[in-house]
């Protein structure tokens, strides 16, 4: 007979069975019994105390994106749990596997609006893959097993388990279930329908101007190698989505960078002109496509995705291939013929040349601008060897344009939800998972301040995270929209900033402000040389904007390009 265990013990033992090494959280009354069991029974799981629960869910997210494993976060009932929500919604949009465990008021108080009761199941429902409210300890082991299974299989996503306090204190003869019983969940990991694969191969073989759009699904399926083989075999240029960055080395001759609202102009031209598109593991959202029915107007689109709901959701497609990206690519490889597309590639080269002629770094300027900083960061990190975690805004776009990612999972960013404040906590999670990796946060002065309270977590965990603040004194990306669409009325966008160097120093983190272009490289090197964390406050030119820009409601063909210096 198995031993009796408390609800709290069952949580920790289940986490151990799932191979969890680290949990990000912050305790409170309703989750306290679980925290007590962690200390009492000395489970070998490292709890990272966060400063704010939003940080905990972003850390679990960063950990998961960096390692490919499930990230775990924990919070108490009511405000603790609702503070997790932004991070869960972020993870849900970007298909990141998280298990969030929250305490709930005791079952006897459920529904009575007692102290710190919030309907966590109700609140988290639309922003999670699944969730549980546990009112009986007998349901707990299955829920834990299922949560990890659901979070990590199929299209990954966050799962919440909300557990009543009395369940944590109750006890049960515990055995961790070996299997799950989910009659409504069949994560589709099978090979896609061979007929659709054959049709896709035929389309690619007949194409004159083929193009691949690679998304994060390729990385989730660990199919980078096969993607590259396919592209090389048939000489097909590869664009990525923002989240697909890193699935194809951006220094590869067939790479055409990434597309969409602030993607490279030449990439957008190619997207609009291709005659067959293989979109793989990318959900074709509006940031990539521009106005849906103007996207890739000349192309027959093959859409490979694990999630059948993505087929035709936004874009009318020609050939749906529902299934795992790796299996789809393996199916395609032998059927897609070796090919060359010299005219098409030459055309793309021409666009590319025009794009680089207009590049902001091709213009003579002494001013300190983010594109230059990103380029120098790229050089200083052995040309793309670091993992970069960006926040949301202009700097995020410049990072993606000028830091040429060559490694898988080397850019972590909030693409779908666009969550400011994501950067620092996600980097903490990533560094907890990849202790040897060089990790850089690239954040705007606005977004950084949303979660900079987690600097104390950086110090507490002695993490050597390097932080680059792109400080332009504005909520830059919004200011850019005001410049372009609202007659330069800067309503609510100028920022009042603290002295970031002093701020860092208050936490015991060495820091330096950089105001001149000539100091950028040396400052980055100084940060790298520091044993622990380091913060660089790059005080950049205030009014630089990101180009190209596809205005909302426009087609990718109607990009606003960078005004020439004379204008």
């Amino acid at each position, binding site marked *: 007979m198995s031993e009796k265990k408390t609800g709290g013990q069952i949580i920790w033992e289940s986490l151990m069975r799932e191979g969890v090494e680290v949990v990000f959280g912050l305790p409170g009354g309703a989750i306290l019994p679980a925290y007590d069991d962690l200390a009492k029974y000395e489970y070998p799981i490292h709890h990272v105390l966060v400063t704010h629960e939003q940080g905990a869910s972003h850390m679990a997210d960063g950990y998961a994106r960096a390692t490919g494993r499930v990230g775990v976060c924990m919070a108490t009932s009511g405000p603790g749990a609702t503070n997790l929500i932004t991070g869960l919604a972020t993870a849900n949009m970007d298909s990141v596997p998280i298990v969030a465990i929250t305490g709930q008021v005791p079952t006897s108080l459920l529904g009575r609006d007692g102290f710190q009761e919030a309907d966590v199941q109700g609140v988290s429902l639309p922003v999670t893959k699944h969730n549980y409210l546990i009112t009986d300890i007998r349901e707990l082991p299955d829920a834990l097993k299922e949560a990890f299974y659901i979070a990590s299989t199929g299209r990954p996503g966050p799962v919440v388990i909300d557990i009543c306090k009395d369940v944590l204190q109750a006890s049960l003869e515990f055995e961790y279930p070996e299997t799950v019983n*989910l009659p409504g969940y069949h994560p589709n990991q099978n090979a896609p329908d061979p007929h659709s694969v054959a049709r896709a191969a035929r389309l690619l073989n007949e194409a004159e101007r083929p193009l691949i759009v690679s998304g994060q699904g390729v990385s989730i399926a660990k199919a980078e190698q096969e993607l590259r083989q396919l592209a090389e075999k048939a000489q097909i240029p590869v664009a990525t989505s923002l989240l697909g960055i890193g699935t194809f080395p951006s220094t590869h001759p067939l790479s055409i960078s990434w597309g969409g609202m602030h993607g490279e102009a030449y990439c957008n031209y190619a997207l609009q002109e291709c005659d067959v598109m293989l979109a793989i593991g990318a959900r074709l959202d509006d940031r990539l496509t521009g106005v849906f029915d103007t996207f890739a107007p000349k192309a027959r689109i093959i859409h490979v995705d694990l999630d059948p709901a993505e087929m035709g959701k936004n874009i009318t497609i020609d050939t749906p291939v529902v299934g795992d990206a790796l299996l789809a690519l393996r199916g395609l490889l032998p059927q897609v013929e070796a090919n060359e597309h010299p005219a098409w590639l030459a055309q793309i080269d021409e666009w590319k040349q025009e794009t680089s002629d207009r590049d902001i770094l091709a213009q003579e300027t002494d001013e300190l601008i983010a594109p230059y900083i990103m380029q120098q960061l790229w050089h200083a990190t052995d040309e793309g060897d670091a993992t970069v975690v960006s926040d949301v805004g202009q700097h995020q776009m410049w990072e993606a344009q000028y830091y040429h990612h060559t490694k898988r999972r080397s850019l972590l960013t909030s693409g779908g939800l666009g969550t400011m404040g994501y950067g620092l906590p996600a980097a903490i999670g990533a560094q907890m998972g990849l202790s040897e990796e060089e990790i850089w946060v690239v954040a705007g002065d606005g977004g950084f301040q949303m979660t900079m309270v987690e600097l104390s977590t950086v110090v507490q965990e002695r993490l050597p995270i390097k932080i680059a603040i792109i400080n332009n004194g504005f909520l830059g990306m919004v200011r850019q929209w005001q410049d372009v669409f609202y007659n330069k009325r800067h309503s609510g966008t100028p920022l009042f900033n603290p002295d970031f160097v002093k701020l860092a120093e208050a936490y015991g983190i060495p820091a330096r402000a950089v105001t001149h272009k000539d100091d950028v490289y040396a400052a980055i090197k100084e940060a790298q040389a520091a044993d622990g964390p380091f913060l660089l406050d790059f005080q950049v030119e205030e009014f630089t904007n990101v180009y190209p820009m596809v205005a909302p409601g426009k087609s990718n063909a109607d990009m606003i390009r960078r005004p020439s210096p004379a204008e």
Partner: protein
Amino acid sequence: MNKHTMIAWMEDKPGVLNRVAGLFRRRNFNIESLAVGHSETSGISRMTFVATGDDREMRQVQTQLYKLINVTAVQDVTDVPTVSRELALIKVKAKNGNRSEVMQIVDIFRGRIVDVDMETLIIQIVGPEERVESLINLLDQFGIVEMVRTGTVAMVRGAHDRAAQQKTAVPAYENGNQ
């Protein structure tokens, strides 16, 4: 824009209706009626619902519903032979003057009078939605005091293997551009 009748099977777990309703709301699906109750399998509820929209929307309704972990199967039965029925209870004003006229109409529609008092009659009708609809239109002239409709429930005709269907209920995607 077409009217579609769909059936969804789901685990009978707390909150499952909330999940389905939440999905309809969040995805902005246009649901006309919805009826839910037990199925032949214990622990599995069966929902019939009628939705309107274009092909893309109807495919989204199915595929998004199917993604809910507790939903075990979804089937669009619009284009297959089904028996579909709705039940309505209609309370109409019926005094001596028009009482027999009302009763005649109810008779023609194979409805039943299930309650009588001096002022009103309660009429019960079971039938396809269109028949229920026509009866209501006719009764309107007498004055409908109160009415309740269950929404359509539907079942595919003839022998078919529903167990097999449940497992392969990922809706087929018809090709878009061809």
